[in-house]
């Protein structure tokens, strides 16, 4: 089609020559602008400026006005007015069009893009204070689902356009040309831009690693002829927990226990609360149930750890109040950049200290960066990037598990005091106190647990301009990381299951990745309207990873300085191993732009990977896309008064995923001291090491391939005030690598992934922004919204059509399942149809052993019969899919207001339709263990004396019945939420004041995060960082913190 149109255009030019006009187009700095479209208004006559910005155009004698337009610059009309020379000065467009977007192995102008690429600006990154860069992009771009961990320095889980595979579905990250995850170890202030390649047509250039999308992060560099600029930022504030579980106090707890005895038809009998008609709150819980004056509580008997005495906390310990604190956060950042005639520089230093909202937890990060480029002559340029990161984290940072401090705070009973009568920790060793750890003790004893993470990331490159438009570049990147961890075991005598021997374990590992990429790129415009750019290249990547772990116990002193491996006396244990992989690739991409209206792109990459056997080592990944700036067509001239720009895009591409483990093709045996060793010599303290078959290989396995089809448009309207980007896409993974389970009889060994599955993700992404002014331009505002929707479905999982995989097992119960036709994963369990109110109702229901009775759940009988229908019996067959952790959509709303020197930012983020399994409910609502109980358990359970009618009960009878705790719809909750993530008010000191002090800029701001959340979810936080087959299982995670920060930004 474009060929036909261009023919028409050329014909038009040929027939209209009467007068010649020439001129030169420059930008505001006076540099020539090539490629500017020059049109005679009202005609089809036009041309494009050459490399020197010059044009010559034959026009009709009566031609009045010339229209100059160029992507990224403001279009303008200039009257010819009889002149034969018409020059134009083009101004950059204020709303960021013409923006250079970093793509794989190159850059493009935003308007030229044919694929689905979103970018994140430095300004957008500031709407969050999270130390993790990827946490900060949440809601800022469409098509990307981000869930952040809330522990200090917590990282985020990123999914681009759904979940592409049952295996690893994290995107590929490329930082300054070096493949490397940013984790939490990148200074967000160092970032110049983030490009998110969402569709296969843009990600295919990354071949086997692009299937889950690509995130390209570019750090700041200086510019030629730029005066030194210094930016200094200081920020400080506090963070607080935003939520806690609503648990019973001591009296209520005792009442609940009495209620449970009544419900079970048993006489109350508790070692602390006695046997009476009502519970008696004792003065002491250790010795059990003792009252004041009892000789056994005589403090003179106290002997730690053999004879601790715990006073009862009669009001009840609020364990969350005990472990939460106002955490201090601070950040200092210095960024310097500049450039001379031939060289540029940019360097920075940053110190971030983020205390956790739980006691004794801390995350400190030190980053340094130096980027420099030097131009040696007309044709050769070289440069480097170097980042050094050092992270020092402390404390018990356990998250979303039943053994973490957050979880022990709901597992501990309220009557337990934090400390015993002598100030040592108290705990569950008092009778009938269950087996919770004292969470305060857990945090205190973990205060010296220390992870240290050092990373050096960088590259060095050389770039030669071989001829006009032809540039060769060679880049050597490296990414080296070293992790060291020391964890201490300190005896916890107050615990009912104490560990009485101290110990220390030390782990260390390093990872070294290098990549060497060589590219040849070519850019040329022919006949002024045919713009071609092409890049071909090769890349080699190799990674080595090595780990070591060692531990000893029984240290003479528990001084952390003393507790080094050497000083441990017994139980000397160590382990370690290594792994490596490599990748070699050739790739190429061609872009063809015709008249800045028609854009074509084709990409291919051929990858060879060590992860596959020789026969299946190579794979080829092609992609093609096209765009049409339809608004630039003459037939659209009538819309110019409201439609500034409209581009339609379509793309198709195939990319791969190689995240299947490294040694899939090898069948191996291994020595194993845990599961293959035996003291055949009768030794009591050592075992002979044996071997076991450890892995079954499969040499037939190859890439998993994802094909994406994407159609979309970009539109700018009303003087570029309203901007819309819309994409609808279909992403199908085929040959999905699936670790096809083998039956036990074939060996309990690691199984290879095989290419068997198919996964489909469909969705649409919308980005809309609107900017305008009010009150005569005094109030500027910009509203930007993102909206992302995906639907995930497994089309084929396994060679066996009926294969189901149960996962997400917690406390012997399976919570998630996936199979053909489901999403990955879905929640799985029984359907609860309310609570039996009467015996007759229970008797009439499908048989369930002795379970059915008033106050118990009515589990729905759905299967088991000969016809597949109900069989009158509740069995495991009656479980079914009961909800999905995937959201229907996620959305972000960013509002910026500027009034005089004040600026205000508000950022909302929401997720709709996502469900969570509230596994904490099983502990606190159903009393799985002898631990803390919720208010609901006492006040809203069936049979509670506080209920006016049992019909109002929200929980079954409190009798600790384990069948009531079976995974069911009772545990699946709607976790939709809307949250004000950010509220920031800034004041920029007027330039007139600053000039005297020779200060370039000065800005103060106050910022609050997570001020409110609207949700129906009853757990701590509806936003849960979880992924894979256990996605959506809430076991009690660090809740989102609320923070208040004050900051100063100084520019010199």
């Amino acid at each position, binding site marked *: 089609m474009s060929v036909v149109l261009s023919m028409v255009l050329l014909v038009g030019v040929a027939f209209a020559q009467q007068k010649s006009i020439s001129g030169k187009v420059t930008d505001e700095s006076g540099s020539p602008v090539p490629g500017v479209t020059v049109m005679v208004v009202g005609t089809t006559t036009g041309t494009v400026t050459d490399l020197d910005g010059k044009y010559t155009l034959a026009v009709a004698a009566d031609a009045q006005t010339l229209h100059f337009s160029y992507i990224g610059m403001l279009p303008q009309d200039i009257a010819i007015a009889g002149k034969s020379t018409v020059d134009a000065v083009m101004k950059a467009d204020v709303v960021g069009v013409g923006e250079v977007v970093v793509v794989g192995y190159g850059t493009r102008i935003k308007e030229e893009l044919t694929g689905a690429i979103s970018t994140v600006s430095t300004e957008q990154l500031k709407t969050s204070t999270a130390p993790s860069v990827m946490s900060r992009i949440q809601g800022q771009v469409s098509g990307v689902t981000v869930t952040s961990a809330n522990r200090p320095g917590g990282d985020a889980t990123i999914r681009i356009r759904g979940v592409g595979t049952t295996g690893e579905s994290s995107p590929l990250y490329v930082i300054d040309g070096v493949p490397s995850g940013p984790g939490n170890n990148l200074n967000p202030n160092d970032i110049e831009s983030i490009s998110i390649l969402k569709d296969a047509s843009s990600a295919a250039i990354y071949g086997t690693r692009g299937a889950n999308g690509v995130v390209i992060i570019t750090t700041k560099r200086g510019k030629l002829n730029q005066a030194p600029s210094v930016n200094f930022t200081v920020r400080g504030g506090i963070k607080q927990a935003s939520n806690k579980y609503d648990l019973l106090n001591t009296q209520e707890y005792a009442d609940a226990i009495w209620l449970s005895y009544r419900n079970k038809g048993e*006489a109350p009998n508790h*070692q602390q609360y006695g046997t009476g008609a009502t519970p008696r709150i004792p003065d002491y819980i250790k010795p*059990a149930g*003792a009252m004041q004056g009892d000789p*056994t509580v005589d403090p003179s008997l106290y002997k730690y750890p053999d004879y601790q005495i715990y006073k009862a906390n009669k009001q009840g310990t609020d364990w969350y109040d005990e472990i939460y604190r106002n955490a201090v956060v601070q950040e200092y950042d210095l960024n310097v950049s500049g450039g001379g005639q031939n060289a540029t520089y940019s360097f920075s230093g940053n110190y971030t200290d983020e205390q956790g909202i739980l006691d004794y937890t801390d995350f400190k990060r030190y980053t340094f960066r130096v980027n420099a480029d030097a131009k040696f002559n007309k044709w050769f340029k070289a440069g480097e990037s170097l980042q050094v990161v050092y992270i020092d984290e402390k404390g018990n940072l356990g998250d979303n598990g039943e053994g973490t401090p957050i979880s022990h705070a709901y597992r501990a009973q309220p009557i337990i005091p934090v400390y015993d009568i002598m100030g040592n920790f108290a705990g569950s060793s008092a*009778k009938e*106190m269950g*087996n919770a750890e004292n969470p305060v003790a857990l945090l205190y004893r973990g205060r010296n647990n220390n992870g240290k993470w050092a990373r050096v990331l960088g590259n060095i490159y050389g770039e030669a301009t*071989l001829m006009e438009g032809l540039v*060769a570049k*060679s880049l050597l990147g490296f990414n080296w990381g070293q992790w060291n961890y020391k964890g201490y075991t300190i005896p916890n005598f107050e615990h*009912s*299951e*104490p*560990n*009485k*021997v101290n*110990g220390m374990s030390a782990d260390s590992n390093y990872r070294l990745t290098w990549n*060497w990429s*060589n590219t040849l790129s070519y850019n040329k415009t022919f006949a002024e309207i045919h713009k071609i750019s092409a890049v071909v290249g*090769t890349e*080699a990547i190799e990674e080595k990873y090595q780990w070591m772990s060692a*531990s000893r*116990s029984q240290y003479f002193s528990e001084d952390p300085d003393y507790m080094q491996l050497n000083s441990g006396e*017994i139980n000397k244990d160590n382990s370690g191993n*290594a792994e*490596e992989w*490599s990748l*070699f690739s050739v790739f190429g991409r061609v872009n063809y732009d015709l008249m800045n209206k028609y854009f074509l792109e084709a990409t291919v990459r051929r990858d*060879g990977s060590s992860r596959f056997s020789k026969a299946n080592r190579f794979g080829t990944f092609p992609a093609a896309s096209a765009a049409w700036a339809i608004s630039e067509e003459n037939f659209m001239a009538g819309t110019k008064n409201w439609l500034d720009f409209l581009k339609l895009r379509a793309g198709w591409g195939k990319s791969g995923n190689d995240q299947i483990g490294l040694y899939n093709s*090898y069948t*191996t*045996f*291994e020595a194993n001291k845990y*599961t*293959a*060793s*035996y*003291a*055949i*010599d*009768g030794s*009591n*303290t050592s075992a002979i*090491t*044996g*071997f076991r078959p450890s*892995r079954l290989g499969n040499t037939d396995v190859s890439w998993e391939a994802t094909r994406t089809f994407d159609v979309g448009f970009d539109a700018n309207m009303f003087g570029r005030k309203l901007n819309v980007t819309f994409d609808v896409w279909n992403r199908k993974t085929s040959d999905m690598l699936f670790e096809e389970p*083998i*039956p*036990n*009889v*074939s060996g309990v060994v690691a199984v290879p992934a095989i290419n068997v599955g198919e996964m489909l993700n469909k969705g649409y992404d919308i980005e809309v922004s609107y900017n305008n002014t009010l009150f005569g331009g005094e109030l500027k505002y910009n509203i930007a919204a993102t909206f992302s929707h995906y639907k995930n479905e497994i089309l084929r999982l396994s060679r066996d059509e*009926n294969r189901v995989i*149960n996962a997400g097992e917690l*406390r012997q119960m399976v919570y998630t399942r996936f199979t053909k036709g489901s999403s990955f994963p879905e929640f799985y369990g029984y359907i609860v149809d309310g609570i039996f109110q009467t015996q007759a109702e229970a008797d009439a229901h499908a048989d369930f052993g*002795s379970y059915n009775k008033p106050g118990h759940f009515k589990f729905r009988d759905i299967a088991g019969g000969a016809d597949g229908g109900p069989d009158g019996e509740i069995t*495991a067959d009656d479980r079914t899919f009961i909800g999905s952790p995937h959201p229907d959509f996620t959305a972000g709303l960013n509002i910026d207001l500027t009034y005089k020197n004040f600026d205000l930012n508000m950022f909302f983020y929401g997720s709709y339709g996502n469900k969570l399994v509230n596994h904490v409910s099983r502990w606190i609502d159903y009393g799985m263990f*002898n631990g803390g109980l919720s208010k609901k358990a006492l006040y809203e359970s069936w049979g509670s004396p506080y209920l006016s009618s049992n019909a109002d009960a929200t929980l079954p009878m409190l009798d600790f019945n*384990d069948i009531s705790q079976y995974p069911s719809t009772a545990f699946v909750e709607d976790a939709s939420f809307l949250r004000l993530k950010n509220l920031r008010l800034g004041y920029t000191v007027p330039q007139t004041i600053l000039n005297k002090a020779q200060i370039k800029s000065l800005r103060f701001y106050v910022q609050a995060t997570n001020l409110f959340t609207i949700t129906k979810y009853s757990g701590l936080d509806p936003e849960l960082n979880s992924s894979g087959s256990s996605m959506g299982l809430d076991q009690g995670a660090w809740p989102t913190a609320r923070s208040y920060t004050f900051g100063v930004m100084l520019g010199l």
Partner: protein
Amino acid sequence: MKKLSIILVSLLMVLNFSCSEEFLTKAPLGSTSENVFYSAKGIDALLTGTYSMVRGSALWDVSWGASIQNWTYGSVASDDAYKGSEVGDQTPVNDIERWEVQPTNGYIADKWRLCLGMGVFRANKVLNVIKQSEADGTITSAQATQYAAEARFLRALFYFEARLVFGDYLPILSEDIADPATVSNKNADGAVLAFIMEDLKYAWDNLPPDRDGANVGRPTKYAAMALGARAYLQDLKYAEAKPLLDGIISSGKYSLMPKFIQNFEIETNNNDESIFEIQANVNDINESLNAEMGIGLNWPHGGDIGMCCGFHQPSQNLVNAYKVDANGLPMFDTFNNTDLANDQGKSSAEDFVPATDPVDPRLDFTVSRRGIPYKDWGINRGADWIRKPTEGGPYLPCPKPFFKKAERYSLSTTTGWQTGINANNYRYIRYAHILLWRAEVAAFEGDVATALSLVNQIRTRAAADKVMGKVKLTKLPASVYPWGATGDVDFTMPAANYMIGNYTAFANKEEAMKAVQWEQRLEFATEGMRFFDLRRWDNLPNKIGGKSMADILNDFAAKDLRIRTSFMQGATFGPEDKFWPIPQGQLDLQPGVLEQRPEHQ
């Protein structure tokens, strides 16, 4: 200059290409392939890996459902013991205890996985490596036979264990089967037993008669015969078991240890009574998982001892079974009418006087009850040492596998959270088994004299030892730990009123069988055999002293409401509960190949 650059860049790209073959080959590190094992050294290494599975535990590849001690299936499912701990923990065991196991139960999945997926699979691997090594000439045929005898003994053991739980619905997998996943678990009658016996016969024909001093964990000829005898007894094949038992007795290589307790102490691991022992060791690796993780939860919880996690508590029914009459003989029919006094519902601070009724001295080695010294840990404090008496009863977790306080940390783990894990071996088969099984054969045959003599031999040994230390305190001051003030415990006196007498005669074979059955319960209580014994005896003409297995278990459940007021309510044992279902996960993975047991369909 520009041309030079072009050449240089082109060269770099070509270089990248040319090295790719070597560059892209990355073999796994730290592991190896099968061919390196075709030697004596290699076979030893793989055999050790197979032996390691006899513990019935393997880090976290399986959890507690596969324990070789069968504390769940053999003990908790019977009248010997409770799951213990509290109701909310390890709920799959609730279902085992209440005879309500569904095919999705995680514990039975563990047992299948360990026996067939790890044990049998590894044994078959070794057998194939032995064959290949012999063919390659890297080992002699004599070596091959010796190794094969060990591997086949182990394979038989794993099959025996699987059969205890799943019955005959097991795929028969010899080392020659190319694809085990295609082998059905539907077998001709007796085929599984025949497969086991074929292996064991090969083993006893070829294993050495004497224990290998350097490798005491290796089976002997007699270990194979003993396992063979037990396998026959599962099917009441008395005639086949008899020569094996006689062979072991007449070898003269085994004798009863002087004291009953020596079968449960670390210092007498691998003793003269021991025929095959599961070796345990601690503190070589983190969490000491080369000891028996399968019983890692079964230690006293909280209080002064404070370990993990209070599971497997003896039942009141079992305690009552140790009551004796004036002659020191069991009270067969009346033992469970009333409970031997217990401290259920009493706090440690309340008065409690242990029962003065005469009891078999084995009681206080098998059960730890309030007011009786507990090894060297002190006076059992009752409720203070129990996780949740209302849900687990008044007795400490079954103490036979426990260790002494003096051994703590030297012979028990210093790491991990299952802090009771220790170096006590599990005597899988000991001479007392042989004697009582032989007595059972005799009773069945009507040879009451032999039965009498053998039972009395066991009772005589039982009489030789008792727990010493009469506790004078009826209320234990919490301040005194662990033995009270001087004089609070009189160590010259027995802890309780112990009495045990020998039988004078058995009137007939029924009475002899009844006494033998009773004796097996008392001698082997809580060692994971009771349920299986009840099951096989249920097929005897006179069943278990005239009562069926269902009579016994349902009566146990009904009377247990005296202790745990509601837990067993509604639980009924029926014939369909004699074997456990084939794990659903495996049925799903082998559709059309594996079949569910008919009573669980």
